[in-house]
């Protein structure tokens, strides 16, 4: 089954046309890029897929279900996770708690269980604990479990954020400018991490990114948008030499 299918997606904010007739189809296991100049509408597309906005027109079908009218946490439960341009970790909670809270969609117990500390509560808390610890272990973050994200270097914070996204066992991972703010050593680490996640978990990764090094080395297919509309798509080599793309980024002056 097609993992993600977007048809005719259009988003207007008042008079501004942020996204115009966006279409894409993603199958399982792909690693796809979404690039374009600043303000092109890329994050808006992600926000639409995540369920933060309801599209003015068009539809988004995730795993066979339409996401129309769903709230973000319900969309997540369908199998999508994402990270944000500005890392949105919960800085006053430990790394471990950051992962634990993401298990809300499968908590397995009710409020009353929590009050009574019933068997169901204890068993589920143990399960959540081990899921979180195992994930941190797999992502080589186990030693930071009791740290607060605000005390970690930026590169590690990004890792934690990606780990948190992975904890909801997504089939589709949306990465919004994951390399933003990273130094070159961290960028290399990021590329390795994304490649590893892609291979290890076999999920589809859709990435917005400005740093061409990241996009070109990871993505097998790239979509380019500008002013809300798709202006090109293709393999990294095709995109690199596409004059429309170059013009969009660098302007009209011939070099």
């Amino acid at each position, binding site marked *: 089954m097609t993992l993600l299918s977007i048809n005719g997606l259009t988003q207007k904010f008042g008079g501004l046309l942020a996204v115009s007739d966006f279409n894409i189809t993603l199958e399982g296991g792909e690693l796809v890029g979404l690039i374009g100049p600043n303000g092109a509408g890329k*994050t808006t597309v992600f*926000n639409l897929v995540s369920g*933060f906005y309801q599209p003015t027109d068009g539809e988004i079908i995730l795993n066979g279900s339409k996401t129309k009218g769903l709230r973000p946490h319900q969309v997540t439960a369908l199998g999508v996770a994402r990270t*944000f341009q500005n890392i949105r970790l919960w800085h006053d909670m430990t790394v471990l708690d950051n992962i634990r809270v993401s298990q809300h969609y499968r908590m397995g117990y009710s409020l009353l269980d929590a009050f009574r500390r019933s068997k169901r509560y204890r068993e589920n808390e143990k399960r959540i604990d081990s899921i979180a610890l195992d994930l941190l272990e797999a992502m080589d973050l186990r030693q930071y479990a009791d740290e607060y994200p605000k005390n970690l270097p930026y590169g590690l914070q990004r890792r934690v954020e990606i780990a948190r996204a992975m904890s909801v066992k997504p089939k589709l991972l949306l990465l919004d400018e994951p390399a933003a703010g990273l130094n070159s050593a961290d960028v290399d680490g990021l590329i390795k991490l994304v490649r590893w996640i892609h291979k290890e978990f076999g999920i589809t990764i859709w990435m917005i990114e400005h740093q061409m090094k990241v996009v070109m080395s990871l993505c097998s297919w790239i979509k380019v948008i500008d002013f809300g509309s798709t202006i090109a798509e293709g393999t990294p080599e095709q995109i690199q030499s596409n004059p429309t793309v170059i013009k969009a980024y660098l302007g009209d002056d011939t070099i």
Partner: protein
Amino acid sequence: MEFVFQNILNALQWGSFYALIALGYTLVYGVLLLINFAHGDIFMVGAYIAYFVATLFLGTMGLGPTATLVLAVPLTMILTSCVGVTLERVAYRPLRRKGAHRLYVVITALMCGLMLENGNLALLGASRKYFPELMEKTVYSFAGLSVTNLKVVVIITAFIAFAVLQFIVTRTKIGMAMRGISWDKFAIPLMGIPVDSIIVFTFVLGSGMAGLAGLLFAMAYPVLEPYMGALIGWKAFIAAVVGGIGDIRGAFLGGFLLAFLEIGVAAVFPSTLRDLIAFTVLLLIMWRKPTGIFGVAKHQKI
């Protein structure tokens, strides 16, 4: 029919008070994004200042009522502005300097209000003060309606005040600076505009309006007591929010809207239900449109 018009006149007068106070709330909120919870009590302070000024001029200095009134208006406004500015300098500015969370400033404002109320009660005692009569009451009757000259003065003053404020905010440079600060207070100093002065000016305007309202209110309802600002202040505040806080048109409209609501309710229902129903209606409006009638929701970037 006269009944309706009479109530409309009453509502216009009552709304003028709410509007004048609401304008002060909205000015400060528009610039600082701060709900100055102490504002209703500044209104009360204004009324008391007017009382002392009037008593001083009438009594000790033996001036006539008209002369007293003419002097009392600017003096009350200036002195009340001083109180407002002092509050800003002493309580709010240090927190602003530290970059404190807005919540802390709001709590401070709430506490300042309480201090003003209870300080008044402690210092001046619980006995009420009676405001001397400064304007001879003439009643105009026409078409079965009666309206005192005072009512007319109050209503006209409110409209003039609004016009003046609207002019300042939209047409003058300082007004533009005021609006600019609310959008980006870091960029403004970079443009060479002194933020602190603008803020002081805003408090001067807002508190001055409250002082004026206090004086007029004391003239219309000459019994003063320390908690008089509390309830009216809250209501004016809610009116400002319902109108859309940050926009002075909203404050003005909200003030009258609330007054019409209250007078309307009191005309139909037993008067004890007046506040209850008014608050409930406001609550419902807030439920449906939290940013108020003129308000614009601040868009959060995801």
